[in-house]
């Protein structure tokens, strides 16, 4: 037979609660308890509000560049909801909602964008890595972290988040390939929000799905409506079970949309149509859950009003904590470089205000006799 079939596959797409309120009971019932649903909704509301507040902080000069998460809350939240507390959560910068759910104090995120490394000093119990600035690089760390738990025969896995743009970087490929070939339990979660700053998705991946990136590695993969918390939770359950049982990686493409600008330094009107934004505004992951809860009669306008008030208070408290922190100690950027400060670096630190000559105070005191 001259022509045979060497490989054959198909990729599924999951949607449970769509933007028209249609809910698939078969997959959806029992997936998230009503209590949990309310709690998750509240998480999203807080995250959305903090985004608003952060935007204003930036505009009024109280914070540096900030990337809003608006519209993408369901992805990381659904993931954090399914993961165990000791699974590594290795994120990029649009996963506030999942991180807060995990327990990261929200002021940490604000501090980071306020130009303060203390925002990245995170309680190790949280099993969270700091915001990753260089795109596409953190997935390798997730692979290493999960490899360590395999090495130690622990059941912990890692879940890493990244954007559609990140899948263009070589490091993405290497992370996927290491995990697939060395059997490392990582869940790779791509937030396909259709844009990487001004560059549209098809420049990053012209294939019909981002999910099929995983086929290159023989990795199990699925696509879901990333604005559908139920679909995200469903896929994360499949993925984490697979990772824990088979010790193998899993890929999830969450199809979502960045409702805001890329960051506060960006102006998305330069490069994308309002029509597209309007379309996706209708697919808002938060609205969808709210309407669903109302239809379940576990939510109403008065609860909404109470929540709005609470969220308002909480966010001001968060901002207060972030802004209320004492000024950073300017020795820190020396002393945090190494476990033991090398003598030469100590000398730089010690003499930085007194002298620049050879960093050696003795020379200045007796310049002619040194």
């Amino acid at each position, binding site marked *: 037979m001259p022509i045979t079939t060497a490989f054959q596959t198909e990729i599924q797409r999951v949607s449970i609660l769509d933007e028209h309120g249609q809910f698939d009971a078969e997959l959806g019932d029992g997936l998230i308890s009503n209590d949990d649903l309310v709690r998750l909704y509240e998480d999203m509301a807080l995250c959305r509000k903090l985004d608003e507040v952060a935007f204003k902080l930036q505009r009024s000069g109280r914070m*540096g*560049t900030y990337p809003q998460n608006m519209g993408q809350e369901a992805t990381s939240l659904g993931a954090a909801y399914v993961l165990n507390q000791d699974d590594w959560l290795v994120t990029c910068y649009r996963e506030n909602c999942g991180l807060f759910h995990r327990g990261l104090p929200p002021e940490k995120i604000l501090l*980071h*964008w*306020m*130009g*303060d*490394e203390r925002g990245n000093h995170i309680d190790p119990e949280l099993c969270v890595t700091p915001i990753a*600035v*260089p*795109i*596409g690089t953190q997935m390798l760390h997730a692979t290493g972290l999960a490899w360590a738990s395999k090495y130690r025969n622990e059941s912990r896995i890692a879940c890493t988040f990244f954007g559609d*743009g*990140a899948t*263009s*970087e*070589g*490091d993405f490929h290497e992370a996927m390939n290491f995990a697939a070939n060395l059997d490392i339990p990582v869940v790779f979660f791509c937030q396909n929000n259709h844009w*990487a*700053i*001004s*560059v549209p998705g098809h*420049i*990053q991946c012209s294939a019909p799905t981002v999910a099929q990136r995983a086929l290159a590695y023989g990795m199990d993969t699925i696509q879901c409506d990333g604005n559908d918390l139920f679909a995200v939770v469903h896929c994360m359950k499949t993925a984490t079970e697979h990772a824990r049982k088979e010790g193998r990686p899993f890929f999830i493409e969450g199809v979502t949309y960045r409702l805001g600008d890329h960051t506060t*330094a*960006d102006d998305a009107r*330069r*490069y994308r149509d309002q029509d597209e934004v309007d379309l996706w505004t209708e697919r808002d992951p938060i609205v969808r859950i709210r309407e669903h809860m109302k239809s379940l009669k576990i939510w109403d306008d008065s609860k909404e009003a109470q929540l709005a008030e609470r969220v308002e208070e909480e966010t001001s408290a968060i901002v207060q904590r972030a802004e209320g922190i004492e*000024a*950073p100690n*300017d020795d*820190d*950027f*020396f002393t945090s*470089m190494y476990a033991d400060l090398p003598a*030469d*670096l100590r000398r*730089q*630190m010690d003499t*930085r205000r007194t*002298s*620049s*000559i*050879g960093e050696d105070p003795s020379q*200045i005191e007796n*310049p002619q006799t040194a």
Partner: protein
Amino acid sequence: MANLTLVQAINLALVQEMEKDDRVLLLGEDVGLNGGVFRVTEGLQKRFGDHRVVDTPLAESGIIGTSIGLAMAGLRPVPEIQFEGFLGPAYDQLCSHAARMRTRTRGGLTVPLTVRVPVGGGIHAPELHSDSPEAIYIHQPGLKVVMPSSPYDAKGLLIACLRDPDPCIFFEPKRIYRAFREEVPEDEYVLPIGVARTVCEGDDLTVVSWGASVVQCMQAIEASNRSVELIDLRTLYPFDMDAVERSVKKTGRCVIVHEAPKTAGFGGEIAARIMERCFLHLEAPVQRVAGFDTIMPYYKLELEYLPDTERIGKAIEETVAY
């Protein structure tokens, strides 16, 4: 003549070369419709079409690696790397290939590309958006490295790079992208790579610097009451050691200022060369005011890190008093 910012001068140089030479094409992340995150390529896609100003996938090695291919085929690609902190993924293609292709093939294949990269700190940016990696690329034989500190120089030097038959890294000090304006001729002109600019003359001491630090040096010199000669290297490889030598032989004293970490920074090379060339003329050890051997801190502390007029002024005083 037009009164232009650094950003505008660069944009103008690109426009003029693209009009003149259809081998020139721009590529990178967000360089198209968005005009680059600093708007340096603003309007160019509209003007020249999306085949000449191309938004690429988010992959720096890919941007440089494909540019090498474009250049080997005889085009003049001008890749943009969005921030110097993201040159890292492209390091290998730059140093293992762009820098080596001519000598590897004994001239058979050449790589006339110009990488444009915003560089340096002082703009309250996030991590990895404020570094100064020039020494890395100066140390790599086969590359040319340029860093202007003024709109006039930027235009003339960028045109020089675009026409250069070898790979150039054109560092754009982002802190002064829009900090001031300068008269820039509307006609095209070329400034030679390898020639420094004497910003001001003086007899007591020579200051050598490049990039945004030149502005800090000017302020420090203004504030000092010494007669200080300021040399802006402008091009870092090849660099104008003759100009430095002449000046230091006159003044006998020198302070070098740069943002990058001190240890194994380019300042060390200049200092060593001054010792080699001016040993018997030196009246004080050459001093360096540089970034510390630490990671550039997040922005709350970045001004603690960057050489400022106070540190430069102190170094001038101490070196003159030595």
